[in-house]
């Protein structure tokens, strides 16, 4: 076992365990905190894969902005206690069985995938900031600019939706 394999197993274990805790824990605030742990583990995987730009963006955007937004909404709605009424057991069992069958199906589907030629990484520094920035601002210039319009419309929509109506 090499060091990178230990690192992979540690991060994977952390990600899967905290992802399970997200859906098991009854308290929504705890769920948000476990999801932050999952995102940090995924960021660690990005560092292993040498995608440093995406690792930083993942920390800033996901754990910094999106999760704080979730936490803010939960605390503003005062949902930090267990108000979820107890569900009957049959839908829970059905959910677990169908998700498990889906997972088995996907694993069986991807088991025979032909990935032998992918064992060696050729160009290791594609995820660095200067390479990615060149690609982003040359080939993907138009989608980059359009995404700013998307953000503007999302901002207007969010403000409009959450505004109290005045009659």
């Amino acid at each position, binding site marked *: 076992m090499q060091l990178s394999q230990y690192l992979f197993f540690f991060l994977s274990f952390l990600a899967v365990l905290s992802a399970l805790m997200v859906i098991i824990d009854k308290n929504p605030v705890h769920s948000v905190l476990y999801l932050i742990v999952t995102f940090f583990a995924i960021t660690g995987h990005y560092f292993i894969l040498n*995608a440093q730009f995406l690792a930083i963006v993942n920390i800033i955007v996901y754990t910094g902005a999106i999760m704080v937004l979730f936490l803010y909404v939960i605390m503003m*709605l005062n949902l930090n206690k267990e108000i979820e009424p107890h569900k009957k057991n049959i839908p829970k069992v059905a959910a677990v069985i169908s998700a498990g069958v889906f997972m088995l199906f996907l694993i069986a589907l991807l088991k025979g995938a032909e*990935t032998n030629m992918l064992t060696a990484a050729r160009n290791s520094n594609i995820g660095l900031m200067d390479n990615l920035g060149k690609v982003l601002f040359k080939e993907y210039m138009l989608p980059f600019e359009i995404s700013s319009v998307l953000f503007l419309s999302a901002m207007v929509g969010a403000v409009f939706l959450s505004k109290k109506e005045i009659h």
Partner: protein
Amino acid sequence: MKEVIIGIPIQWYIYLSVILFCIGVMGVLFRRNAIIIFMCVELMLNAVNLLMVAFSRYFGDTGAQVFVFFVMVVAAAEVAVGLAILMMIYRNTKSTDIDTLNKLKW
């Protein structure tokens, strides 16, 4: 940084992404709080992002990482609008339980 990836076959990343995605699917089916369901959707997006970054690294292709960046952009916009809709639902029904929203159910 070049030799960090060597001992890890891409199959492991495929399995990890499948497991994380299925945990997200299970959460969507399992929980009734709309905020938790939304968080599980984010988890599924992250599983797919991880798989795409792994493939881009093993193929040596830059386009996939740019695409992951755009997925993050769209996810941020989606979260802003979705949480505004949840606030609206909470203001009208005083709960975030999805079982109270059954007007469109046939």
